[in-house]
């Protein structure tokens, strides 16, 4: 056998993170084009099959008699407005399967229960498995208790069956496999971060296990949870992200939140109240806290669409129950907020030692969706919005160019008013003033006054000041493009990768007032109301600061470690050199050198050819 084939030396990473399904390379498709072929069925194979063919017509058209379903799927969403103004949404998907994973019979035919997880449970003889991935920290003081607590990062705890002999080896293999399934770095779990709690983590399912040598618990606080963990999690659901509550699980919104936690809990539960037989329960939970305060333009109101950028249109057809609960305990008479569409269904439940009231939407009822065939719950807080506020951000990508956007909101329903916008931008962001655009309501809004002072490198910043008229109930957007300058290496801050700050823009405005202002005296008024002088009756002066910007500049690679190596090596070498010198140099008494006059005389004598002194 000749050997003319070399294996590639690099082992390809097995877990290439799964992209969204649609992204398939065309190259791969090209390759496959040639390989597909139709199956030619030889008759003999069919008839050779062991079971004698049934006589008469093929029984494909059996009378529709659904067999007793051995598995059951439920889905549920709870939304709770928190006191801090954030919204807490908690999803739970529960699959119960009357299969005996702990028996001798191998479970290998799956319906609603995900195959990948079932195989893992079978192979590693897992009794209970709890795994959670969390981004952010649950602030109990501000938010109250979560329905399902979880620590930041990844947490995994597993009860093995008592048939497992090498628990540590199985645990190691299990973490590796789970890290492949969930695209997480669970493979970093090893003996250095694994413990066997003796009392805290009792099995949550049935079974009275006391021998904690079959329990392993580990956390990875550093684990960063992102969309690549969500995609495999969603794949475990029977309806995927195609129908039911799971259509709301879009990563671009879920990860734009202050707290995100997804978990998988597998445990044996009782099948019936007498607990004669057990079934396997898989609960997939996802908890998320949306900070709609900051991401929702300062409004506290929320809707499904605003939180998830999707609305509900149907329940998952495979689910036996599909419900949405909204916690309305804090709103008994509807004075705090109003919820639409209104639902007559109210239910009470005792959760975490507290009796709560919930509005219930049953997605399996067609009536829940109304005439528009989509359910978009909307909650509006009854509060006043400020008349003027603003936002600012940097847009663009890469490290060369960018764009500064300033948004100024006028929430006054019918009055327009002028504002003065001042922005001072450091010199290392080179503004292109010709790209300055101001627009409101989609139309060009020409400032009536512009003062622009260009920057000088390392001397003075840009100064841009303009007077803008804000139309009523509008958003005015000011954009200007810039280019990032290269700094000298000494000009970088000690942590240059943190970015460079650009100070807030200042918006000064005379805002129309609802009540008449007192322009006369400043004597009797309280101090906090008399800082800005009041010259007009119908309006008052206010100043709004935008957010400061954090801009990344191109940063050189500060190769610190190599400098340290060079420095220490040089020090060592210098020390070595002097030591070497001391060891090898021979010291001897030098004859006193002749005096200066004698040496000069000798030089002259050499010129003259006379013998030296």
């Amino acid at each position: 056998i000749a050997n003319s084939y070399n294996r590639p030396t690099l082992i390809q990473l097995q877990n290439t993170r799964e992209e969204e399904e649609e992204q398939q390379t065309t190259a791969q498709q090209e390759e496959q084009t040639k390989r597909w072929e139709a199956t030619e069925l030889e008759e003999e194979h069919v008839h050779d099959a062991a079971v004698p063919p049934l006589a008469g017509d093929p029984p494909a058209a059996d009378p529709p008699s659904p067999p007793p379903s051995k598995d059951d799927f439920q889905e549920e969403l709870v939304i709770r407005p928190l006191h801090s103004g954030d919204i807490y949404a908690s999803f739970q998907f529960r699959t119960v399967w009357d299969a005996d994973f702990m028996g001798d019979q191998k479970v290998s035919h799956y319906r609603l229960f995900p195959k990948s997880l079932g195989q893992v449970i079978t192979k590693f003889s897992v009794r209970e498995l709890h795994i959670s991935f969390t981004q952010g920290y649950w602030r109990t003081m501000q938010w109250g208790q979560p329905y399902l607590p979880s620590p930041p990062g990844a947490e995994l705890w597993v009860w093995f069956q008592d048939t497992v002999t090498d628990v540590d080896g199985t645990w190691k293999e299990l973490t590796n496999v789970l890290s492949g399934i969930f695209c997480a770095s669970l493979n970093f779990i090893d003996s250095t971060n694994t413990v066997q709690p003796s009392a805290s983590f009792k099995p949550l399912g049935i079974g009275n296990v006391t021998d904690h040598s079959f329990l392993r618990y580990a956390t990875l606080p550093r684990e960063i949870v992102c969309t690549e963990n969500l995609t495999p999690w969603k794949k475990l659901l029977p309806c995927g992200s195609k129908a039911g509550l799971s259509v709301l699980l879009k990563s671009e919104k879920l990860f734009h939140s202050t707290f995100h936690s997804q978990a998988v809990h597998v445990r044996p539960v009782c099948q019936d109240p007498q607990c004669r037989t057990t079934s396997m329960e898989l609960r997939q939970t996802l908890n998320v806290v949306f900070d709609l305060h900051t991401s929702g333009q300062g409004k506290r109101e929320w809707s499904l669409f605003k939180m998830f950028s999707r609305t509900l249109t149907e329940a998952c057809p495979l689910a036996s129950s599909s419900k949405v609960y909204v916690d309305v305990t804090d709103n008994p008479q509807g004075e705090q907020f109003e919820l639409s569409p209104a639902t007559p269904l109210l239910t009470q439940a005792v959760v975490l030692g507290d009796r709560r009231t919930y509005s219930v939407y049953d997605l399996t009822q067609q009536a829940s969706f109304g005439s528009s065939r989509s359910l978009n719950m909307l909650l509006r807080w009854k509060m006043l919005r400020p008349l003027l506020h603003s936002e600012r951000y940097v847009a663009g990508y890469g490290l060369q160019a960018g764009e500064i956007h300033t948004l100024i909101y006028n929430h006054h329903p019918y009055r327009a008013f002028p504002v003065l916008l001042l922005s001072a931008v450091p010199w290392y962001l080179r503004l292109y003033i010709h790209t300055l655009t101001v627009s409101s309501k989609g139309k060009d809004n020409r400032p009536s006054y512009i003062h622009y002072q260009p920057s000088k490198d390392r001397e003075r910043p840009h100064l841009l000041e303009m007077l803008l008229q804000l139309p009523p109930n509008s958003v005015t957007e000011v954009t200007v493009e810039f280019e990032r300058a290269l700094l000298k290496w000494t000009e970088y801050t000690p942590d240059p990768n943190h970015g460079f700050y650009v100070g807030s823009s200042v918006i000064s405005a005379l805002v129309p007032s609802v009540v008449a202002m007192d322009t006369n005296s400043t004597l009797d008024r309280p101090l906090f109301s008399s800082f800005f002088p009041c010259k007009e009756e119908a309006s008052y002066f206010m100043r709004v600061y935008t957010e400061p910007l954090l801009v990344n500049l191109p940063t050189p690679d500060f190769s610190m470690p190599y400098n340290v190596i060079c420095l220490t090596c040089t020090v060592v070498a210098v020390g070595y050199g002097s030591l070497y010198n001391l060891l090898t140099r021979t010291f001897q008494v030098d004859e006193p050198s002749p005096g200066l006059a004698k040496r000069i005389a000798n030089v002259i004598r050499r010129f003259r050819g006379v013998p030296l002194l």
Partner: protein
Amino acid sequence: MVGVPLWWRTTETYRAWLPVNQINELAELQVCLCYRSMAHWTRYVHPVLGYQAGCHLRILNEILARDHSGDDTLSVLHVEADLSLHTLSASPCGSVVVYVIPETSVLLPQGVDVYIGHRRTAVLRMGAPMSVGKNHKQLLAHLEPRITQVVQVMSFSHTDITAALSDRVRLSPGSKESLADSMRSFKSSPGYEITFSLLNPDPKSHRLDWDIEGAVHSYIQPLLTKLAPLANFSIDSQILYYAMLGVNPRFDSSLEAYTLNADSLAHVINPVEARLGSNAASSNPVLNFLLYVPDAHHSPLYIHDHQKQPVASNAFHSPRWGGIMVYNVNDLYGRGETPLPVNININMEKVMGVFLAQLRLMLGVQSSPAPPGFLVEPCGGAGLADWELDRLMWSRTVENVATATTTITSLAQLLDQIGNIVINDNIASQVSSTVTSLQLAVAELEAGNLGFALQYSKEAILASERAFFDPSLLHLLYFPDDQKFAIYIPLFLPMCVPILLSLIKIASEARQRRKLKQSKKD
């Protein structure tokens, strides 16, 4: 003086001893494949030939004696003969027994020269009439090409072996067709995962129910039991909801059906494949068999081949991946009267017939068409004849040996080229066990003991893979020399300066002393 050995000792990498010479010998391995073939002669033909098996003869005679009732029984005669001959002498794995019967025998039907049964026996009709009295050698010479032909069908031929080696040995470019044939079946592996997936694109339109457990038990399991010496098989099934095909089928108004062209088949499974999932608990190759039931609005769906003709089985397969079958249930929807979702029970017999055929292709059990004059008994309940299993074992053994050899030689090359890699003792032991197993496998192969050869070759491949993919081999792989220089130069360069200066000084002093001596002499 103290520092240099210390530095040498602390920075060296541990490299266990490897049997490099033996590995290099393996690289130029020549295997001679031998099959143990027994030819039994009946006294009928040649009393001259001394050796015959009396009982064999008796059985054949008995069968022939019973055969005077009429032509009806004639057709089953050879089947009976095959069975009786097998019960008589159980031939070992890998051997072929050829029975030669006289030209005039009625054992075989008219026009059939060679009959191959379920077991490892073949009955060969003596060709051209032979004059009695020719000696043994002449007779053998006369029969040799035909026996070779029989053996090629029943155990292995040149093309089988080249196909098994095609991934490892660069061959002269053969025909495209044969390449496609050789690429269709899975590569040899110690185990296979077979996954049946039922794709339900719209659970709102139909609720599917399949008795996969029973179907696997009665259709697939017999074949796999037969193949058990070759590899371990595990079977799983799952139901995937909302699994769409990647291509929108075109509506053909003349057929009143949706059609999928062979050209677009490649794009069909891409979105589905992301959801199939590999087996999380093992790393064996997965054979996927998908059953797609189109929903009410895209039904019926037919597959057309390259000639735009509908495919009878409505199924297609991809080499080394698996197959898809489209199962139309449009007649069950009624005329919009039945409320959706419709409950559908899938006829597993129809489905499993297709999947079984695909499975045989994927596992490489396809038999090349028999030469003219050959009568091959169709495979029975197990779906696989003994000699077909042997055939598979021959090619798998050769393939395993080739794979293990390639792996181990390239590992040796790699370790030879990159001196930074640590070779631990466990790697060394894996490598040497690979080499031993390989040598044993080759020896058994040459001796014709197919069962042992396969066993050893499997051991070799397992050990070689374990050695090759051991994570410890990667640790110091990327620590190139230039980085080492970069780290050591700031230390060594300044240290060298005084040493060099003093060396120069010593040299100049020595020269001066010599000059002084010379001047003194003068």
